[in-house]
């Protein structure tokens, strides 16, 4: 199998995981972020389930130089905790709280055929392009 086929299959599995977890529903995400009122802790179980599944594999594969398809593995280098990390994550937190969608569920939400998801994705694409063209 080639890179494109693997990517497609992984996207399908990821998308099924998102919808099974309930996180494609913005209402569930808002319920998690609503810490002072009717808090819904489900999102912790989604992240927890994914982390305990992937974590051990990352540990055992951490010194691997090449992927199964033969590509050189370039993991993100250790970086200082800088302003970009904190400000970027804060701005993402505001956007996440406004709608209840982060990038994965925002794309999977296209499967609902609700046109508002297209408006969200176009705005998200604009944010990505503005960042790319203004800040190195």
């Amino acid at each position, binding site marked *: 199998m080639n890179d494109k086929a693997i990517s497609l299959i992984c996207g399908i599995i990821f998308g099924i995981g998102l919808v099974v977890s309930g996180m494609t529903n913005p209402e569930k995400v808002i319920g998690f972020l609503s810490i002072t009122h009717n808090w819904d802790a489900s999102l912790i179980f989604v992240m927890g389930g994914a982390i305990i599944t992937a974590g051990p594999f990352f540990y055992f594969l951490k010194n691997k130089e090449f992927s199964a*398809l033969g590509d050189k593995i370039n993991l993100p280098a250790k970086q200082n905790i800088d302003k970009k990390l904190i400000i970027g994550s804060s701005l993402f937190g505001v956007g996440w709280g406004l709608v209840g969608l982060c990038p994965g569920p925002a794309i999977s939400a296209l499967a609902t055929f609700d046109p508002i998801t297209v408006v969200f994705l176009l705005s998200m694409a604009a944010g990505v*392009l503005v960042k790319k063209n203004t800040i190195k």
Partner: protein
Amino acid sequence: MNNFTPFSALLGGIIIGLSVVFYFYSTGRLAGISGIFENAITGTSKRLSNLAFLLGLVIGPLIYFNFIASTPVAFNITHSYLLIIPGGFLVGFGTRLGGGCTSGHGICGIGRLSINSIIATGVFVAIGMLTVTILQQFGVYL
């Protein structure tokens, strides 16, 4: 606690974790969706692979809705452009400035025990909670 669904949440999380592992093992890349999205639209390297992943993100739920789910899957989203447009923009801008989103920092990064990702996740969760709490004071999301 209303609407708490720990079992389906955990099962969904494990499925996501398996996708992340299979993707990393096969391609050597981390399944951070905001990065995949940026690559898919700006096209630096492996553009078609990144587009294929995003296509999968849409096909997966379609398979689930049509062949697996026994009841309709809930989807409740605001239809206020005052929330959707700035919300989408900030998610796009913020995730790329901060170098990751819920998948890249929250799952892959924490799974690799990256201090940066643990801090980033703490920040976006805390600010997301603050944002929702403030919106609730103005009668949005009760």
